[in-house]
């Protein structure tokens, strides 16, 4: 078998995968729950929810970190996922022979820390940032500088796994996880590295981040039945449900992976990306950027639309995304779209934001490996405007050779990946 693609570039193999979601720790637990149609969405008990319009999320409550804050939880999720992935790959766990590309949530100091600074300032009247600065000047809060700057999570992961070079921390909003993989693919293809550790992580369900999304009317408010709130492609969908997660993939030049006798779990065959200049949170009404991203991913993979067996949807459950995604896919896949299975993992784990593209990449590869398509649960009221085969409510067995995974994000981000059991023609 040729270990280069039709454009003469090194083939990019996946040799390790790890994942943590609200459904469980490790890909076996998550996959079992996901194919059983189980939801990881529940009432938030991490913080008080009185006064909030949305009181549910797919938080990961079985992992504790100290101090509890988004960068600490995100780091822990990344570490767990990467331990599983690097462990599976058989590569040295503290001496990873390649680069780190890491999608991390943008962090800032959180309210418990602001409160601690306010208290330490001794100010008993109106608190201002002058007071917080006065407390900061005491030097007592030095570790929080490291904790709340943007490069720290990736730096600690780089330390733990011994990755090479300067680690890349990145954000492309809700397509970040896919972008991390894309950067790894590009680095391997241009021969810069033979291996890349690509991670997406997000443990940022806290009051302020939830409220920010809530104020944009992006979240589902159907709190009464948490498991039923995320309803991608349904007529009664009313927003996404925040989720937490981490996922890691070990990418390798297929040639070096084979040479060391690694088990190849699948291939990243194509990447497509297109910016959108229409609006900060909404997509171009004609779907042209998303269409361009899908088309580019297919052509990069050397595949025609007819060869895709399954689409792992972005499928957020917002009225806007699901309509746009259905329209864009229909534009590319034509009439076939009525019968081409497309399902959304977010119906069960919620929207894991920065991690979503990486989590869904792992699920796409498990779909190929197991021949089982995870369902879109909570699909009770089909939306006649978007007639799709969403693999409603129950997983389905199918022979899946090639998967398209979509990721779209605020700020006009559109990133699509194509995964395969084998490269075409192999």
């Amino acid at each position: 078998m040729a270990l280069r693609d039709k454009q003469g570039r090194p083939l990019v193999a996946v040799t390790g995968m790890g994942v943590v979601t609200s459904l469980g720790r490790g890909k076996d637990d998550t996959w079992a729950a996901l194919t059983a149609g189980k939801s990881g969405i529940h009432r938030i008990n991490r913080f008080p929810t009185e006064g909030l319009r949305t009181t549910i999320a797919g938080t990961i409550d079985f992992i504790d970190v100290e101090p509890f804050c988004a960068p600490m939880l995100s780091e822990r999720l990344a570490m767990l996922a990467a331990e599983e992935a690097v462990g599976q790959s058989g590569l040295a766990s503290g001496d990873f022979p390649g680069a780190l590309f890491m999608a991390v949530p943008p962090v800032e100091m959180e309210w418990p820390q602001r409160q601690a600074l306010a208290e330490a300032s001794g100010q008993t009247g109106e608190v201002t940032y002058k007071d917080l600065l006065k407390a900061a000047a005491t030097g007592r809060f030095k570790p929080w500088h490291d904790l709340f700057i943007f490069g720290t999570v990736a730096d600690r992961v780089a330390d733990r796994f011994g990755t090479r070079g300067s680690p890349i921390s990145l954000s492309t909003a809700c397509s970040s996880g896919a972008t991390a993989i894309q950067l790894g693919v590009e680095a391997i293809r241009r021969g810069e590295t033979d291996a890349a550790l690509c991670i997406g992580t997000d443990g940022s369900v806290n009051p302020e981040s939830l409220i920010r999304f809530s104020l944009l009317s992006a979240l589902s408010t159907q709190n009464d039945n948490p498991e039923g709130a995320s309803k991608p492609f349904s007529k009664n969908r009313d927003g996404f449900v925040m989720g937490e997660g981490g996922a890691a993939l070990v990418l390798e030049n297929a040639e070096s992976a084979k040479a060391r006798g690694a088990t190849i779990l699948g291939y990243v065959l194509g990447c497509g990306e297109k910016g959108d200049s229409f609006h900060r949170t909404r997509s171009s009404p004609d779907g042209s950027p998303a269409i361009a991203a899908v088309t580019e991913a297919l052509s990069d993979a050397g595949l025609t639309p007819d060869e895709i067996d399954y689409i792992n949807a972005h499928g957020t459950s917002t009225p806007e995304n699901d309509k746009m995604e259905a329209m864009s896919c229909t534009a590319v896949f034509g009439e076939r779209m009525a019968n081409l299975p497309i399902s959304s993992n977010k119906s069960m784990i919620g929207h894991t934001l920065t991690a979503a593209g990486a989590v869904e990449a792992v699920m796409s590869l498990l779909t190929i490996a197991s021949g089982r398509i995870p369902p879109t649960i909570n699909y009770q009221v089909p939306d006649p405007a978007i007639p799709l085969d969403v693999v409603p409510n129950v997983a389905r067995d199918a022979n899946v050779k090639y998967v398209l995974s979509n990721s779209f994000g605020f700020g006009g981000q559109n990133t699509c990946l194509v995964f395969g059991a084998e490269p075409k023609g192999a």
Partner: protein
Amino acid sequence: MRDVVITGIGIVSCAGEGLDVHLEALSGTPKTDTEAFAPYPVHPVTALEWDRQIPKKSDQRQMEAWQKLGCYAAGLALDSAGAKEDVALKNRMQLIVAAGGGERDYAVDGQILSGLRAAENPGVFLNERLMGDLRPTLFLAQLSNLLAGNVSIVHGVTGGSRTFMGEESSGVDAIRIARERIAAGQDDIFLVGGAYNAERPDVLLIYEMGGFLWKKPYQPVWTRSSEGGGMILGSAACFLVLESREHAEKRGAKPLATLAGVASDRSRRTTGSVEKALHGLSQQLGGKPDTVISGATGVKGITDEEQAALKDIAPGAAVHATGDVIGHTIEAQAPAGVALAAGLIAAGKASDALVTSVGHWRGEGALRVTRA
């Protein structure tokens, strides 16, 4: 591998707007505001006519200062590259932005912190106040990738859009990866840069917690160590247009300079590690620099190590510190260093320039700029 050239530069800072004023400012003293955030001096950005690069008021209203600065500089870079009116070119132009994020509503934060002390149920109080007092659009003005998003919206750069984070390193790595993608033939043209707003108490807070801020009147970065060292943050933005030499020639764009190489790494910081890292990185780049544009922070220890390393790496070279022209601008520091180097080279005042970036806390980078 293909040659990568710099064909456009947009820069704004306390020195003013555009490359020429920044080259003039290499020999001056940067404008410093010691009052607004006393005891912390900052280098405030010059007043800008936003309409000139961000024509729609509605767009201006959707951005906070760091995004507006970045958007403005990105527009200047596109103008300078002769790309601003070329819709088809911008449609396939790739974008990499080095960004932090944030910007908060300081009044709201203060009111909430004051109220939390007496709140019967602090968690519920916090929920209610945030729900009631946060501006919905503030979120978009805080998100790291929304500088890139705004550049797409305002200037129509829509080939692809990626945002790197991670303080100073993100600026170096944004340029490094753009360069590698062009050199390897993966893409033809990039808009790369970063923006920083120093005139905000929340960023001063982060760096003051770490003990990194200079609290005396302005002094050049190289002389601060004897008095404890520290950085003065600056508000600035810088974007570069990078493309393959063939691509520039084909569209008739005149290269200002060649981006000959970019090297970055992270040392485990111990005594001597920065000096060693700079030696290693500059060896990777080769060349005999006649000019150094240093990203030195003024932080004690690492600034002294850089000074020592430069004596070996670039003996006899003219050494300028970006921090003494625009202040320390975190993510924007490496792009600004490259802009100054390319400007000197285009003006015939240098022929082989080394740009350094030693992060205040982690990450080391070196970039080589040579004649076009």
